[in-house]
Structures are given as C-alpha cells and as structure tokens.
C-alpha cells in the first residue's frame, strides 16, 4: 500500500463521477490525438522537401493547382499541353530528363487515379535518394500497368490482373480498353501508393482519348507551332459524317496510332542538368516568361500551402481541442473539490493515524493526476481508434492515406502536460485537505 494505491482507492470509491470526469478528459485528448495524427500525415505528405525532379511544367494557371494535380493527384488537371511542347522541352540543353504524364481517368474499381507515363518516370527517385522498387517489371508495352501498393491491397490486384478506366472519373463512362498489371510498387508513403500507372502510349490509344484533329490544330496554333497543310486536309476529312456504329466491337489493337500532333500531356516532370539547381531556376524563368506554359518547383509551393492554410487549420483545431481538455480539467476540479466536504472525515482519520498534512495533500494531487493521465491514455487509444474509423472516409473523399497507428511526437508531450494540469487541478482541493482540522473532522 502506498499513496498512489490510496488515491486509486479513492477514485474507485467515487467510480461514477471519477469515470465521467476521466471520460471528459479522454474525449478532449481523443480529438487532440486525432488532429495531431491527421495533421502529421498531411504535413508529411505535403512537406516533402525533395523529389526526383526539379520542376513540374504544366499549363498556365495556379501553381498550387498544378502541384496538387500533377504530384498529389488531388485536383483535376487544367488544359493539357501539346505533346510537341514536351518534345521541344526534352531537347532543351538544360534538361537532363523530361517525363510526360497524363492524368484525369480513374480505375473503374476503387476509383484510384490513373497516371499515363513511360518507364522513365520510375527512373527518377520518388524522394531524395529513394528509388522506386517494383515487384514484377516497369512499363514496357502500351497496355502495361504498374500499380501502387495501396491500389494492389485495396483492389486485391496483383501481376496479371486486368482493369478498365473510367473516363474523367465519370462512373458510368468506362473505357473498353483493359490494362494488365505487370508490376506492383513497394510502399513509398507518397501519393504514388494510391496511383495506377499505365503506359502513356496505351493511354493515348484509348478510343476516346484522341483529340479531334481540328481541335488539336487549334491548340498547336495557340502554342505557335507550324501545322502542315496535309494535317489540315486530314482534319477536313475527319469532319465528314462517319458510318453509324463504326466503333462497336472494336479492339484497341485496331486503332491507328495517334499522330504526335493529337497527343497531349497533362504535365511534364523535368530534371535539369547539374546539381546546384541554378539550371532549374533559369529554366523555370525561361518557361514562365513564355505565355504557353508554367514551370514550378513544388517544394516552395507546397510549403506556402502548409504555412497559409494547413498550419493555421492545425493551430485552430489544436486551440479548440485544448479548450475541450481545459473544460474537462475544470470538471475534474469541480468534481474533486465538491467531494472534499464528504472526505473531510476520511482525511481526519488518515491524519489521526499519523498521515502528515503533506501526505494527504499528495494523495489528492495523485488522485487528480491519475484521473488526468488515465483519461489521457484512454483518449490516446480512442484518438487512434477514431483515426482508424475516419481514415477510409478521408481516403475516399480526399485520396489522402492515413495510417491510424502513425504516432506523432507531440502525443508524448501530452502526458507531461496532463500531469501538470492534473497537479494544478488537484492543488486547491489538496490545500483544503492540507488545512483540515483533524479534531473537527473526526467529530463529524
């Protein structure tokens, strides 16, 4: 028997009120833990400080929108770039590697984003000195697909599985063409885990992905490319009415290969030559001066998003949850303080048995601290449980993967804080115990 045992006995004696007060603390801690874990995952995701490329080149518009669509696949892409622009950029003397991507479609099963690209995509590290690892092979033929670990796990796909795409994510608009899984990526902790990569050649080969020639010509002219007369003639021919049902029962192997002028890319990942990054800055400046496209370094863009929005939301949520914990703390204080009148006799007995004033003070303090810490531990478990329940919903709505077992270092700070809060709460009731008149308390 020691002072903690005595405090625990006292808590047990007032089980209902103790449980309710501890529960109020645990609810506050639960919310705080959930906020911390979700925020930690979001921060990790958007605070990636290095990629295997220096620049993302995309259509003119919002830099944030380009980063969110090209890297995080969280937003719909803007107007695509002509494939010829990619070819032009590939030839730029400052460019070491340029990898095109096309996005917009989703897997029919599971609704995971599709990225059309080529095998060079996987030659770039997904993070600093972290190369892609694959079971199977990377993209080789036009109808090959490499899927992220999450796609494989959720859809139950493996090498050899075949799947279809929904056009632009419209549920009822399913492309007939099938892609075959040839590789499964090892987990990366990035949006690549929930992405299905298909060969860009196959992506272009999908029957409804080819751009009408006239539209393609218009786009090329906007990008100041010279359009040969033969192509204009072909566009005129295309405008003639076609036979009905010409597309029925088609096989994707029957499609004539798309002309380069008709091909489009959503964005281009660029790795510049040299290690200093000056080449990237110069190239970005050059691209951005032009009216045709935009180049961004995703790191500062995402940092801006973090500092402007995510950090502020996190702060607001933490303040709110702290207030909840504070309200819970007040309820513990009220509960213990109110119980002091009933406990004067008990305190008198302990003092008569030889307990010092400091001893009874410590018992009350321990009781309060135990309630806070107990509530904290339950809150910690409930918080992770809450994340476990919420993570599939968050993933389906935002595409952000959240590991319920992810542990935030801030969670460790919670316990010393709760201990301090518990001690503060117990101070006044403890003082009341300290000042108890033993003779008077015994006669009650």
């Amino acid at each position, binding site marked *: 028997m020691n002072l903690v045992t005595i405090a625990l006995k006292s808590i047990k004696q007032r089980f209902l009120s103790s449980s309710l007060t501890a529960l109020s603390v645990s609810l506050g801690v639960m919310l705080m833990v959930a906020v911390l874990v979700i925020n930690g995952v979001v921060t990790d995701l958007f605070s990636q400080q290095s990629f295997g490329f220096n620049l993302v080149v995309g259509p003119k518009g919002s830099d944030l929108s380009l980063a969110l669509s090209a890297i995080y696949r969280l937003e719909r892409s803007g107007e695509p770039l002509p494939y010829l622009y990619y070819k032009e950029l590939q030839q730029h003397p400052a460019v070491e590697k340029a990898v095109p991507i096309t996005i917009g479609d989703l897997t029919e099963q599971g609704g995971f984003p599709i990225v059309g690209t080529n095998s060079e995509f996987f030659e770039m590290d997904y993070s600093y000195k972290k190369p892609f690892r694959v079971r199977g092979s990377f993209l080789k033929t036009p109808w090959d697909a490499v899927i992220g670990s999450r796609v494989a796990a959720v859809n139950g796909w493996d090498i050899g599985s075949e799947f279809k795409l929904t056009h632009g994510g419209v549920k009822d608009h399913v492309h007939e063409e099938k892609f075959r899984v040839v590789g499964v990526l090892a987990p990366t902790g990035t949006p690549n885990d929930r992405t299905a990569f298909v060969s860009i050649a196959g992506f272009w080969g999908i029957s409804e992905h080819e751009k009408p020639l006239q539209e393609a010509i218009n786009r090329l002219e906007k990008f100041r490319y010279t359009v040969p007369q033969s192509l204009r003639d072909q566009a005129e021919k295309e405008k003639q009415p076609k036979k009905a049902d010409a597309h029925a029962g088609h096989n994707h192997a029957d499609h004539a290969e798309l002309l380069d002028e008709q091909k489009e890319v959503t964005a281009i990942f660029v790795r510049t030559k040299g290690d200093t990054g000056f080449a990237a800055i110069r190239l970005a400046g050059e691209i951005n001066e032009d009216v045709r496209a935009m180049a961004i370094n995703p790191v500062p863009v995402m940092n801006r998003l973090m500092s402007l929005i995510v950090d502020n939301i996190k702060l607001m949520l933490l303040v709110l949850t702290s207030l909840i914990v504070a309200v819970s703390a007040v309820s513990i204080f009220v509960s213990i303080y109110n119980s002091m009148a009933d406990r004067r006799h008990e305190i008198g*007995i*302990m003092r008569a048995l*030889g307990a010092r*004033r400091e001893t009874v003070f410590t018992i009350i303090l321990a009781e309060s601290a135990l309630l806070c810490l107990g509530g904290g531990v339950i809150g910690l478990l409930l918080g992770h449980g809450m994340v476990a329940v919420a993570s599939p919903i968050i993933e389906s709505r935002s595409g952000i993967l959240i590991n319920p077992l992810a542990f935030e270092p801030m969670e460790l700070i919670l316990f010393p804080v709760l201990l301090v809060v518990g001690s503060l709460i117990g101070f006044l009731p403890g003082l009341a115990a300290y000042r108890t008149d033993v003779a008077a308390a015994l006669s009650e």
Partner: protein
Amino acid sequence: MSLVLDNLKKSYREPGGGTIPVLNVARFELKTAEQVALIGSSGGGKTTLLNVIAGITAPDSGRVVIDNIDVTGLNEPSRDRFRALKIGFVFQTFNLLPAFTALENVLLGMCFSGKGVDSHRATDLLKRVGLGHRLSHRPPQLSVGEQQRVAVARALANHPSLLLADEPTASVDVANQNTILDLIRDACKENNVSLLLVTHAPDVAARFGRIEKLSDFNRL
C-alpha cells in the same frame, strides 16, 4: 512511565470572544502496560484530552510526555510521525475507511508510519482478532463488532506503546461489548501496551483495576 500529563490546560474560544476551559490537569500518570478506565460525562473533555495526548490538538500550556518524549515540544510533522509510531487509536465509531478492505484498513495504519507496510503482520493481527476469514471484506460488509475488531487490529499495527480508546464499546451491542473489551485489554497485555480507555459507562469501567474520574483530576 508510559504517559505523563503535567499541568495541562486547554480552552476553546467562544464566538463572542470569551473562552471555555476544557482541560486543567495538574498531574496524571500512566505506567508502562498499565490499563486505566477514565470515566467522564458527555462534554466533560474526554475526547479533547485524548486528542491532546495524541498530538492532534495542541494544548494551551503544559506537557504531554510519552515514553519520556515531550510530545508538546515536537513540531507538527514530528508529532504526526510520533503518533503513527507510538500511539494506537480506537474510536467510538471505528473510523474505518469504507473503500478499503479489512486488511487494507490495517495496512493503512502502517502506511503512514514511514516503516513500510507488513502484510504478514496485518494478516496475523486480523487473525488474532478472529477475522482471518474476513480479510478482503470492506467495512460495510462486516458487522459492527467485526468493524471494531478491525479498528483494534489497526491500532496495534505499528507496535504502539500507548493505546487510546475513545468509548470503544459505545456503538456495539451488549453481547459484543465484553468481547471487544477483552480483545483490547488482552491485546494490550500481550504487546505490553499501556491502555487509556475513556468511557461514560460504569459497567465498562468496572472491569478495570484502575478507574479514574476525569472530574477528579480535571479541575475546571
């Protein structure tokens, strides 16, 4: 000498500003292992006397000497420690903690002594008062007589040299009165503990070899 009260005075303040004298003891002695019944009427200062002896209430003047130590000269923490180690207390209303089992109530007495708890001794004491089968029962699950036996075991837990009993049989039925009294007296005899038992019942006092009337030496 186990207990000496020397020129002990205690009075309480009245709300109006005056004082009510409660104790005025010129001299009182209790030898080691001696057993004394102290008779007094209600409101005669019996409980105050026990509280002053135990160091719970400070006297206005005079000395309380237990085992040659002037308790009134000790500071409060030392008095608390002294009380835990040297004085056993049996109350009229038992004063057991309801959330604790019989065994835990006895251990609680040891817990504050600073010597650590001894579960074997606590169990043994409870067995000796006939509660070996009630160790894990809480006070509300025990009869009145059993509760007072737990209180006796608790009072003896720290090997005290003086046991103060404040009307220990007042709350128990007649059948249990003698049992409790015998228990307290036998336990004190076995452990060489001096006993000062306060009562207002002449039949209880009659069982003691030495009977003192509080009014005889408390000159108010």
